[in-house]
């Protein structure tokens, strides 16, 4: 039934998008926009609102083994280290894919809106996402807490720290990392989100040592010079 629901959601969502395309506030759909400020700050709920997304890569599989194999494959140079700029491109196979800087109006980032607005596939896709979390001080025993539709793998400063697998909906604080240290200054959060069919989105935030959301983190798309 889940697949049915997802199909219906996709259908209805597509109709809505088609109907409103002409009046959409931005080219990225109703919930997303291109950043116009240098930074954003996490609010009381701690969700990270700004990301740079690479256009979808066609893939297949949501199981742990399939997703782990998928993210370990080198799709483009420096895929675990690149700090992408808006408009930069990567060559993936025979395709040239573009990075897009994106702000979300919601707690989550709707990848279906993103892919649909760009006239890209929304099903059986892998989307890479990168953001910079600037912490005013070193914070120990924090956790990266994520939710995604569907599977996803997450890295903090180059280390894999969380993953969820299989067909699933976005649940706040679904996958949670072990206790981590957030460095003073910039910290790179990188994600690979894999969708099977239908709707796709993700959310992410940091929790403090008492498992409370961390507000006041400055989110940028590039490391400060």
């Amino acid at each position, binding site marked *: *039934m889940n*697949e*049915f629901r997802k199909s219906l959601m996709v259908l209805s969502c597509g109709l809505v998008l088609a109907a409103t395309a002409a009046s959409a506030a931005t080219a990225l759909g109703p919930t997303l926009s291109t950043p116009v400020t240098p930074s954003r700050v996490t609010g009381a709920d701690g969700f990270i609102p700004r990301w740079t997304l690479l256009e979808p890569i066609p893939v*297949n*599989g949501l*199981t*742990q*083994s*399939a997703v782990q194999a998928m993210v370990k494959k080198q799709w483009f140079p420096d895929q675990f280290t690149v700090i992408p700029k808006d408009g930069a491109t990567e060559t993936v196979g025979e395709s040239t894919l573009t990075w897009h800087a994106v702000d979300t109006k919601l707690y989550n980032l709707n990848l279906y809106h993103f892919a649909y607005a760009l006239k890209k596939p929304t099903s059986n896709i892998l989307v890479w996402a990168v953001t910079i979390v600037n912490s005013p001080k070193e914070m120990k025993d924090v*956790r990266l*807490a994520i*939710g995604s539709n569907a599977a996803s793998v997450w890295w903090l400063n180059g280390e894999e720290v*969380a993953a*969820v*697998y*299989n067909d699933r909906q976005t*649940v706040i*604080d*679904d*996958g*949670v*990392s*072990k*206790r981590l240290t957030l460095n003073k200054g910039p910290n790179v959060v990188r994600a690979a989100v894999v969708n099977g069919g239908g709707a796709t989105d993700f959310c992410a935030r940091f*929790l403090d040592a008492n*498992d409370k959301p961390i507000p006041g983190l400055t989110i940028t798309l590039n490391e400060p010079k």
Partner: protein
Amino acid sequence: MDGLTSMRHKKYLSLALFAMPIAPVTTALALDGEPGIHDPSTITYDDGKYYVYGTGGSPLVSDDGWTWHRGTAPSRTGAAPDVIHIGDKYFMYIARGYAQPKADIFMIWSKSLDPKSPDYKWNDGGVVASSDGVEDSNAIDPGVFLDHTTGRLWLVDGSYFGYIRLVELDPKTGMQKDPKAKPINLAINCEASDMIYHDGWYYLLATHGSCCAGASSGYNIRMGRSRHVTGPFLDAEGVDMIQGGGTQLIGSGDRKVGPGHFGLMDLGDGVMKFSMHWEADLDRGGASVLDIRPLLWKDGWPVAGENPKEGVYEIHSVHTSTSLAMAVEGMPVGGGRMRQGPGLGPMGGGGPRPGGARPANGAGAGAPAAGAAAGNAAPGAGAPQRPANAGGPGAPAGQPRPGGGFGAGIFGGTGSPIADQTAASVSANWPAGDVPVAMNNYQLQAQEKWQLTAVPNAGGYPGSPYFKITIAGTDRALSATEDGELKVVAAFSGAPEQLWRLDQLADGSWRIMPKSQANEKDGMALSAVGASFPTLAKFDPKSDRQHWLLNRP
């Protein structure tokens, strides 16, 4: 000798049992060591040890609340003592009977319960309550209660012959506050009373039925409650205990007969237990033994909980409604089946999952791979593959099948029962060595089913031994890590981080703590920090993150 006199007489005769140590039962989940006692006092903690005193000066002492040994008798012995710790003193109340129902209750006190302590010295206080042999009272079976809401100290006493009576004591001296004050009658037809306070109510817990007759004893603990310490105490049906009312807290069961002599153990953080004796533990030859049970609360009434029992469980988070699992790639029970192809719809033919070459449910190496035209892998290695969209046994395609009536496909099932998934059937794909721990929506898969097994000679905690928690059918054991996280190790070693304490909480759920943390201040408990990720975190009684259900798998 009337019936009651005979009963009390037997109570004293039963002391002879305690001279003989009771053989420990290493696998039974009852208290270990030498738990033989009759009419136990409230269990009292002093400097790292638990103490409990019974009729005839037969104390038991324990380092952990699980394994008990004979202790040192106090200076005065008698019937059914009770003990309370107030300030720097331990007050003990002990009854001495004469020609029934004439009796006195004496108080003695010491600054320590440990005979090796320089502060250990029992001092005589004097008589705090008595019955003259004529009045409707039998001043034995004291139960002492400090009302933390008022700071007032109370004593209840009595046994069948007349009333359970209430007198006020001085918390500084332990003696009767006003020797001229008339006792207040609270209940009849019971003995071994005690009182507790919880959430605006006073609860009078008393033992009904006959004692001291082994497996023929009718002892059972009943209760009433009142807004006032002086009563009236009404049971759940509204019957006053002074007219014989009483809602049962606990009766006989689980191969044990005749619970009596309630005593509260408040372990803090919302964890409450109670002590009692069984008149006859059938697993210990019918001896009278101490026991400790969780004390739960439901609709404003105490409920007797259960100590953890060995078995296979789903460990289910109250907070997230997901379940603890070893983080390996799961295999659907019965093998991978899913809808196939456009146009078939949900009732269409079953087909292999992506990667359907994975053997299903018992199929090991060499099992036939599910091909494009094969689906619905049947249980068991080498079972013939059913063609996609095919009917069940004896059911032509499109006709109702034994399992449902949807015809073939994912909604129609395989047409025959699907066996439980065992670890042996799927573990060939599990990694060796340490494996992370996750939480899943429970799907009855092998990596989600946990075996709880009591570990002999590993110590315990009030009421229970430590347990190992292993993936059912394997020796892969849940373990705490040094950094306060979790993992599943390849084999149980008996290390403290692999031993688990399970305390049933007031709502019936469980707190689960590793032994390596269980005795620490601010000890860490299994915690559902994320829907898919468990950790260890300081136990917070106000949160449900550390509340777990042990469901049958």
